[in-house]
């Protein structure tokens, strides 16, 4: 079956279903508006009461005197702080094995935004959604506010000295001490740990990762004698093959990998275009898989078979011996044969990575890379990646020790085993047998609730610290705000308990001195640029990073490492297999308590607030694509794995291998914040194999539909455009806009996405040239005056988005939310199409129906020069600036929403409720998002409001809002240029989405400057650059590039 333009967004779109048309029609769903589900029970009486109150309030307000406001200066003003001017501090985002070098933007001493640090060669100024959301977790109302004893899930306050005395008393009893942590990449923390261990020699640190890479570490040790993860050079690889490793989204160091990967995917010119080729072997669609040129669909249990098959093919081509292996489906086999020849052709410049947690599989992959000559080439062991160090087998040993009563004291540091482990139940039972259980966690997570004492650590933005994400890459963490609560650095606590002589307790910040002395002595020795420790420290603190050149290290494959096909996972015989994966936003639940991340749609499924069961869609052989077993989005089913039953909500997913389902980790958190009550905890489903956690199960039972999630929140069909419809009577394809969706304004099969194979690039360029020509011709017939002269003077702002570089990771979306005070509305409101995001990432499919390719298209206000929204505003609240910006004056808006209706791109958002609680009315408050168990709405808490950007108005109820091209940044950049008597340059103004992007897909700048990056980038790809809906003469200010794949 062929779709008219080869692009579709969902099954309903493909099937041209009436229900879909209705759904798409609902730019703002109103289906639940009148329902009285206990939330919305306002009666006429209420209305009259409120009206009476309103009149009264207005009269009162009018007659009252204006309140006296105070202006409070500093007593002694610090030189560095100028009120109204932001300060940036270099720091790092570190959470277990997640790392990103960042700049923290503070205003008047309050961190409000995370930017990438371009001085780091690891992340190169890129960020991830997780890093962007760091600031919100600082202002988490659920943070533990003091040290104390844990009683019934809450902390009973103790002074730090009391706690220290108690803990020291316990430590000195001499029992075994265990410190449970996720990967710790801080050299100075390790030094502190060493001091602690020296003082109490019966201490052992037990490390595991929320999502394990233990097999990779073990395999590398076996194959190369190095228990570590090498540097993967995606930027040097012409052919990349990944066995289920989501290296663009979640695997080890995604920000770094994404940048390198994208550097090989950018089309720099139409002629002589080249790009890498990417194969992905997987069962569910990962973010990485959705970006692949060829997705090889396998069942999760076929991973071993696939790896063996590739090995055999590569060995055959390179003259090695095969190892046999389990049977693999023919389709995958054929694809892997082709992949093998590509890989061999690119010998030494190819790369095979594997996300499996099976040692033998990883060893075979290592051998494949060895056969391909990739070791010491695209796989470099001189710089090791420190981001995954954990081994769950250690945890199993610990559980045994605890059960045997051999552990007297346990310290939990940055880990949440009571939730994250598959055998959490065993852990909980064993943990209870430990006499003293101390947690450093800042929130009351599942493990802290089981502890006897809480010694809450500072939030990262309040802490000193360092990180060594890769060998020789050192990165500092510095506080950007004084601690908000009575917390203490974890390292400080350890040193205190170890009675360290190196901790200067008299100092205001003892750990700062400790850290500084470590850097100024130990790390200083690794460089020669600065002769004094103080100078070295100052410079490192300023830059945030210090990079020492690593000594080259070549490794060779250990001939003694025996490869054995029987050690790989064997295909299962169950009817349904299930795979488990980590999402970009939630991880394995570590980020579940961050509302920004919860409300960021999962890039692939486009669902929010929870984890959903992905099921395949099936071609009925005739006209329709159906959900597996006739299931629909939002249906609830009962799933049973290993005898444990859970009720999951279904979401149909293109590309999900038939006979398999998948569900993300990280749902169903039980304590600690806003993530409680969303999704299900599937960790108990994860099987163990050889002591290692397996992220799939062979035999899952999925029931028939047992119910419906009334608030199923998937944004895929919200704010859609470019859709066709099928006329019910005639059966013809029709323009949805004209026939059905006059309200929605969708357009049939218009120029939203263009795609082509690399081989056919010249053909596409030709087609697009023709299209541009035609659009231009159409647009000549215009009633609009020619504005070239008007916009040609001064600055004209514009944007270019390279869809080839965009991997859909969502960092831009969270950055936009953070920069522009975009409110979190909560799951129920999202279900009603009320999400407020100014920037959405549309997901389009193309290619094979059962295994399609994906284009991600960041879509925000296009700032049309002939903006349709402007013409229909009755009060001129939205209008155009001579700099090409479609302006929105909130105070003028009266909320007719005509503009939203008339917007062809569906990018305008309406404040249905008082989301930011600018002025609360009780009837509105009901539906506002609040953290489970809170009395007041989320934004009503002053702590949360500290995250607001003071340069951007907080919108009130009843007004439209949308992307402003970060007008506050434009104003700031222009002012800088004016004050320096010069033209405005590219670096003066960078939009929030642009700075967040790890792959440089978004370029913003002055279209009137022929030298600006935005002009150069669009010119570089020539005719491949297009405007969405170019032919309708709205003249958008944003250009996209066609999506090119290479298969």
């Amino acid at each position: 079956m062929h779709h008219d333009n080869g692009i579709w967004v969902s099954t309903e779109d493909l099937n041209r279903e009436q229900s879909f048309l209705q759904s798409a029609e609902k730019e703002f769903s109103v289906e639940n508006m009148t329902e009285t589900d206990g939330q919305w029970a306002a009666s006429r009486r209420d209305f009259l009461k409120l009206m009476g109150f309103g009149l009264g309030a207005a009269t009162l307000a009018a007659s009252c005197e204006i309140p006296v406001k105070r202006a409070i200066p500093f007593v002694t003003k610090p030189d560095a702080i100028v009120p109204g001017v932001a300060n940036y501090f270099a720091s790092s985002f570190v959470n277990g094995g997640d790392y990103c070098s960042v700049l923290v933007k503070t205003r008047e001493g309050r961190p409000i935004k995370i930017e990438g640090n371009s001085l780091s060669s690891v992340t190169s100024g890129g960020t991830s959604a997780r890093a962007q959301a760091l600031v919100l977790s600082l202002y988490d109302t659920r943070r533990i506010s003091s040290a104390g004893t844990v009683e019934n899930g809450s902390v009973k306050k103790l002074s730090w000295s009391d706690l220290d005395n108690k803990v020291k008393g316990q430590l000195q009893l001499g029992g075994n001490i265990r410190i449970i942590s996720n990967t710790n990449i801080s050299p100075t923390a390790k030094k502190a740990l060493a001091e602690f261990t020296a003082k109490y020699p019966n201490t052992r640190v037990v490390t595991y990762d929320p999502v394990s890479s233990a097999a990779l570490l073990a395999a590398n040790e076996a194959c190369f004698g190095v228990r570590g993860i090498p540097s993967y050079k995606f930027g040097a690889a012409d052919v990349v093959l990944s066995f289920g490793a989501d290296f663009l989204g979640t695997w080890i160091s995604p920000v770094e990998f994404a940048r390198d990967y994208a550097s090989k995917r950018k089309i720099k010119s139409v002629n002589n275009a080249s790009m890498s080729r990417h194969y992905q072997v997987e069962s569910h669609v990962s973010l990485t898989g959705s970006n692949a040129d060829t997705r090889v669909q396998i069942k999760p249990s076929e991973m071993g078979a696939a790896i063996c098959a590739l090995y055999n093919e590569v060995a055959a081509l390179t003259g090695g011996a095969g190892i046999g292996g389990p049977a693999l489906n023919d389709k995958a086999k054929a694809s892997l044969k082709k992949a093998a020849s590509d890989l061999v052709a690119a010998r030494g410049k190819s790369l095979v990575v594997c996300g499996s947690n099976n040692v033998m599989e990883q060893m075979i992959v290592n051998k494949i890379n060895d056969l391909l000559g990739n070791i010491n080439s695209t796989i470099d062991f001189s710089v090791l990646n420190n981001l995954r160090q954990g081994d769950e087998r250690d945890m199993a040993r610990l559980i045994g020790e605890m059960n045997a009563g051999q552990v007297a004291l346990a310290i939990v540091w940055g880990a949440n085993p009571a939730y994250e482990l598959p055998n959490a139940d065993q852990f909980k039972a064993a943990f209870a047998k430990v006499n003293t259980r101390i947690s450093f966690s800042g929130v009351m997570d599942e493990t802290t609730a089981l502890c006897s004492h809480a010694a809450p650590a500072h939030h990262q933005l309040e802490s000193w610290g360092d990180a060594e994400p890769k060998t020789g890459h050192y990165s500092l963490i510095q506080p950007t705000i004084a601690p908000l609560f009575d917390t203490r650095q974890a390292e400080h606590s350890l040193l205190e308990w170890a009675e360290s002589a190196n901790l200067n307790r008299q100092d205001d910040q003892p750990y700062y001195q400790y850290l500084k002395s470590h850097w100024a002595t130990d790390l200083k020795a690794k460089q020669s640029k600065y002769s004094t420790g103080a100078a070295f420290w100052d410079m490192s603190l300023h830059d945030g990073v210090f990079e020492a050149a690593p000594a080259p290290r070549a490794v060779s494959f250990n001939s003694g490492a025996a490869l054995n096909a029987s050690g790989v996972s064997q295909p299962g015989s169950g009817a349904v297999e299930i795979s488990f994966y980590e999402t970009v936003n939630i991880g394995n639940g570590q980020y579940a308590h961050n509302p920004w991340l919860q409300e960021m749609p999962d890039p692939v499924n486009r669902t929010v607030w929870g984890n959903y069961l992905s099921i395949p869609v099936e071609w009925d052989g005739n006209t329709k694509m159906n959900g597996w077993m006739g299931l629909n989005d939002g249906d609830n089913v009962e799933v049973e794995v290993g005898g444990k039953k859970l009720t999951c909500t279904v979401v149909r997913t293109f590309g999900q291998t038939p006979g398999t389902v998948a569900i993300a980790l990280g749902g169903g958190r039980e304590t600690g914040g806003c993530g409680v009550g969303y999704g299900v905890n599937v960790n108990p489903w994860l099987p163990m194999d050889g002591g290692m956690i397996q992220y799939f199960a062979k035999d899952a039972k999925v029931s028939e539909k047992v119910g419906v999630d009334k608030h199923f929140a998937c944004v895929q069909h919200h704010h859609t455009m470019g859709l066709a419809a099928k006329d019910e009577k005639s059966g013809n394809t029709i323009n949805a806009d004209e026939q059905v969706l006059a309200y929605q304004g969708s357009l049939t099969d218009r120029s939203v996405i263009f795609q082509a194979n690399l081989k056919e690039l010249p053909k596409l360029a030709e087609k697009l040239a023709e299209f541009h020509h035609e659009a231009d011709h159409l647009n000549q017939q215009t009633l609009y005056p020619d504005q070239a002269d008007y916009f040609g003077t001064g600055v004209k702002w514009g944007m270019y988005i390279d869809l080839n570089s965009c991997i859909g990771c969502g960092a831009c979306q969270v950055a936009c939310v953070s920069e522009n005070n975009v409110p979190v509305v909560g799951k129920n409101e999202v279900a009603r199409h009320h999400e407020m995001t100014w920037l959405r990432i549309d997901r389009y499919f193309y290619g094979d129906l059962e295994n399609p390719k994906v284009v991600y298209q960041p879509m925000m206000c296009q700032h049309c020069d002939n903006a349709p929204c402007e013409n229909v505003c009755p009060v001129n609240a939205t209008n155009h600036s001579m700099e090409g910006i479609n302006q929105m004056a909130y105070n003028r808006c009266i909320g007719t929403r005509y503009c939203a209706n008339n917007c062809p791109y569906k990018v305008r958002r309406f404040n249905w409720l008082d989301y930011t609680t600018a002025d609360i009315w009780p009837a509105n408050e009901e539906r506002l998002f609040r953290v489970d168990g809170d009395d007041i709405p989320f934004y009503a808490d002053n702590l949360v409001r500290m995250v607001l950007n003071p340069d951007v108005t907080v919108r009130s109820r009843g007004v439209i809002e949308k992307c402003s091209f970060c007008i506050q940044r434009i104003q700031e950049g222009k002012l800088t240029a004016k004050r320096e008597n010069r033209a405005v340059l590219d670096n003066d103004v960078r939009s929030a989405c642009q700075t967040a992007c790890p792959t440089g897909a978004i370029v913003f700048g002055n279209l009137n400057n022929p030298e600006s990056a935005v002009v150069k980038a669009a010119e570089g790809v020539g005719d491949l650059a297009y405007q969405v809906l170019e032919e309708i003469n709205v003249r958008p200010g944003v250009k996209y590039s066609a999506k090119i794949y290479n298969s």
Partner: protein
Amino acid sequence: MLLTRICRVFSIVLLTSVAAQAAPTIEEGKNLFIANCAACHNKNMKDNLTGPALAGVEERWAAYPRADLYKWIRASQAMVSEGHPRAVELWAKWKPTPMNNFTGLTDEQIESVILYINDVANKKKDDKGPKDDQASTSGGGGNMWLFAGLGLILALLAFALMRIIDNLRNITRVQAGQAPVERTLYQVLTTKGAVAFLVFAATLVFGYKSVDNATAMGRQQNYQPEQPVAFSHKIHAGVNKIDCQYCHDSARRSKHSLIPGTNTCMNCHSAVKKGTISGTAEITKIYASIGFDPITNKYIPDYDSWSDEQIEKLYKQWIGQEYAAANSLPALNDAGRTVVEHQWDGIVKALKNDSNGKIQGPIEWVRIHNLADHAYFNHAQHVSVGQVACQKCHGPVEQMEEVYQYSTLGMGWCINCHRETEVKFNDNDYYKQYARYHEELKSGKREKVTVADIGGLECQKCHY
């Protein structure tokens, strides 16, 4: 005859003008008040301070000869001991704080002070600053009469026309053999047309007034709150000619123009320890805020941990010492002790408040210019780039004893300035990119480039 009359009139004019020169003036009264009375009596004349509020002082003494009032001001305690009923009454109310003696004041000077008191007490807030565009362009009161007159004439005209129509109609009625109809004024005024017109007019006027008043809501032109420290911009910016941006130093680089921190004050006041007007009364507040010991000229290292008593002791000692020195007293006398107490009270009142429960810490000024939250204003843009003088918006601050809001800070006021102000187009390379304007300027097609021409009236220049 005529000549004598002219002479007489001339001499009267001459005499009155001479007399006016010798008579007490408000201006003199103000200076005298600040120099002598302001330490104890509230400048707003309405509230009590150490001494009673002075508004209505003439009325309160009206039952006694004017000389009694003079005497009371010059030596109050003497009158109390003489048993003057008003004096005794006052003493009973205000003891134990006696009023200082001001034996040097002449009758004329006292009259000047009374004139000043009455002036302040009776003064309604003048409109000092510029108005919004519509108000400043209209002629105000003069036009009002014009309109009223025109209205009256039109009403008479309408009435006359109505009579003519009635008469004409009656003529036709009579010609047709019908009886003429005489309408009363009441009947005329209650015709459909008249009622509709009145309703229409009322709606129009009501609507106009509503909008007009609504726009003015929240505006605070001429707002002049009392500040915790009687800081005189006149002394600092006017007399001593300190540059505005010496203290408000972030105006050139930030959107805010920053109230200076206490440490900025200390740059000068570690040396200048007594004020021209208020002596130690105000400057000691700075010391108490930051913890500076004016006796030893040193900052107090652990000032934050000092108790109120410690602070009180130090600064009372300082004030007393200075009082004694100024009055060449060997030791502090009663009057001196009163001054010390009074000034100490002032310090506590200025520095200790609900949000900061102790004396140490910042001086909490009352914010005068409150721009609405949804309006973005950047000082740096105007001060550094536009090179707009501070006075353009803030008025003659260098002449203000106490600052008030000079401008409306309304949108019309902003827009008007953006329309009129010429951009420093040729001095700044930023504006080179406006090639078309440069060409037009060169060819003479365009005379100037205003802020509006480069987008200064666009919504998102100020609202986002």
